[in-house]
């Protein structure tokens, strides 16, 4: 589809290639969906709707299921089974199994060697590919944009729409170019980039927009780093974030189970190569950050926009001119039990969580392990390491990372969302502080009354061994 030679963005190209019906004054566009990911929490009511109306899943072969949110991550029993203690979770998982099997959707059940967090397994299995449209009843579907796919979260009614029709009604979003120039320093990671972006634009800053991450620092990231960045687009309010596919992307794709091969690979590459934004294409908005100036980031408040460089001081509500923002900051500091001007470096913590669809892939675990190796988790800290998928777990174990974590005193668990969302019993106790590699620090997100500092796997590991919030650069220099 050419457009009279007008330069176009990556987003526009993917959008145009999937338009079944153009948007008009009276109706949103109708978009075709290439890949639909489903999980146990946001799908049951959608399947019920299909049943009520006597509908089939239109394209089970473009749909995939996995169990992740409410699954336990406790070690397997002597039969190799992961026991489910929570009756409601058991029922939900059961319902999900039945739905997938009744409607012919392939699904990775708890304990399956390919089970894992939905946004970890899609890329891992080569299902996520450049130039696709991908949806899931989960806001962190933005993760898959790292491949140059247009990927976004939808609600349960929309899950039903896609199951039944493989299409979705969508108003065309605006675009923002997020340029990250320069190079990251030692101890600074993809997570710090995205936390810095969100701290800058605020959690509503990207509402109604799709981000395209560009610039040298993004190009230098591997696929897993790009996934970390795109994952948290939603935390800046954007439903989707994208990175143009390049050789890093193609190398990652080669040989994966569902990636095209042979002649199909060549045909796919011909399409993928057309995707990057044309020179001179216009974005509705632009922002630029310098990676050279970035240092590790950490959040202090109760939304991901309340972040700062790790050596910073907690801001004072009194300095906030906007009344609503001041109120929000007051409330956040009260919940976190922090005072204005306080520094987080050196603040005692209770738990370190390494996991979630943001930072539970093999490179994340390698980073954390390289740091932990030969050190001990502080006695006062509970450190949990939860791989994003069974495949990540297997890979990590083959590299001996599990031994490193265990030897240091950390817990090595089964794959799943775990303490990112605290639905499965993995949770903070009221009042506890955690350094977490997940994506949300909302009140109660990691357990009622729990207090979350979001940070990178390196910062989390440094804090685990120090027993307090710690700057990984200091320990790296040791």
């Amino acid at each position: 589809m050419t457009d009279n030679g007008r330069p176009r963005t990556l987003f526009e190209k993917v959008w145009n290639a999937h338009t079944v019906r153009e948007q008009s004054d009276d109706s949103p566009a109708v978009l075709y969906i290439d890949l639909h990911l489903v999980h146990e929490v946001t799908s049951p009511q959608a399947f019920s709707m299909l049943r009520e109306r006597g509908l089939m899943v239109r394209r089970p072969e473009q749909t995939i299921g996995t169990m992740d949110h409410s699954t336990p991550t406790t070690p397997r029993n002597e039969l190799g089974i992961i026991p489910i203690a929570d009756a409601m979770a058991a029922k939900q998982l059961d319902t999900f199994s039945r739905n997938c099997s009744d409607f012919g959707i392939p699904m990775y059940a708890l304990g399956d060697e390919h089970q894992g967090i939905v946004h970890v397994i899609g890329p891992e299995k080569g299902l996520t590919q450049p130039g696709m449209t991908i949806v899931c009843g989960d806001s962190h579907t933005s993760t898959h944009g790292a491949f140059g796919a247009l990927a976004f979260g939808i609600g349960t009614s929309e899950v039903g729409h896609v199951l039944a029709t493989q299409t979705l009604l969508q108003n065309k979003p605006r675009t923002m170019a997020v340029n990250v120039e320069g190079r990251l320093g030692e101890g600074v990671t993809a997570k710090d980039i995205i936390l810095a972006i969100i701290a800058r634009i605020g959690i509503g800053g990207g509402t109604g927009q799709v981000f395209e991450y560009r610039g040298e620092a993004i190009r230098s990231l591997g696929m897993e780093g790009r996934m970390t960045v795109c994952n948290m687009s939603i935390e800046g309010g954007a439903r989707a974030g994208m990175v143009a596919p390049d050789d890093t992307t193609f190398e990652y794709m080669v040989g994966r189970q569902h990636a095209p091969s042979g002649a199909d690979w060549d045909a796919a590459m011909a399409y993928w190569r057309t995707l990057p934004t044309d020179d001179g294409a216009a974005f509705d908005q632009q922002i630029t950050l310098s990676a050279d100036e970035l240092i590790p980031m950490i959040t202090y408040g109760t939304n991901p926009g309340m972040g700062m460089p790790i050596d910073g001081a907690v801001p004072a509500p009194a300095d906030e001119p906007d009344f609503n923002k001041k109120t929000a900051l007051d409330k956040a500091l009260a919940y976190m039990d922090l005072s204005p001007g306080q520094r987080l470096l050196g603040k005692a913590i209770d738990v370190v969580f390494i996991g979630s669809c943001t930072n539970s892939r093999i490179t994340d675990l390698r980073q954390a392990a390289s740091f932990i190796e030969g050190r001990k988790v502080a006695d006062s800290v509970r450190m949990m390491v939860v791989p994003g998928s069974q495949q990540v777990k297997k890979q990590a174990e083959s590299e001996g990372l599990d031994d490193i974590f265990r030897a240091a005193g950390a817990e090595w668990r089964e794959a799943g969302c775990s303490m990112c969302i605290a639905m499965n019993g993995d949770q903070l106790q009221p009042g506890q502080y955690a350094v977490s590699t997940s994506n949300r620090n909302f009140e109660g997100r990691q357990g009622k009354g729990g207090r979350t500092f979001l940070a990178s796997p390196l910062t989390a590991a440094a804090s685990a061994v120090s027993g307090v919030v710690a700057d990984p650069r200091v320990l790296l220099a040791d």
Partner: protein
Amino acid sequence: MEKIRHISGSIIGLPANDIDTDQIIPARFLKVTDKAGLGKAAFCDWRYLEDGETPNPAFILNQPAYAGASVLVAGNNFGCGSSREHAPWALLGAGFNAVISTDFADIFRNNALKNGLLPIVVDRDTQQQLFSLADEDPGTTVSVDVEAQELTLPDGRRVNFPLDGFSKYCLLHGVDQLGYLLALEDDVLAYEAGNPQRVTTTD
């Protein structure tokens, strides 16, 4: 879906900015397999004391003066965070049929409209005026005319709010969006005929 032309009801204010879906309904209530009964869980961690059952008398939703409020006035950027449609289900279950804010997170807004919960965007001044009214005079009512896209305040002032044509049509006529998409089967077949299937999950 039911047709929605007018609503009116008394207001209640939650002036916090960025009320996320984890506050609207915490994740531990998402282990359900249907939509019913989520009203009790709305704002659960603010609404009940430590035991999770005893109403917290300090929380505004529990104050008798606001019993029966059906229009929630909230701080900026309401509904950010997760895509859970349980958020509008819980608000509807708790008796709300409209939320007024200066802006809404995209996914929440979509989810709300699909369930007949009206997300009404107003300017800062109107939002602040509503907070004051709710505060000073519990029981203050507002009314909403969907067709005219107008919110009428107690002093008679009318404020327009944005609503895309399609959502408005669906609300006014009780149109079910799935029915609309199912009717486009021929267009979808034509699209599929002209484009490659990009991935197969079953092989």
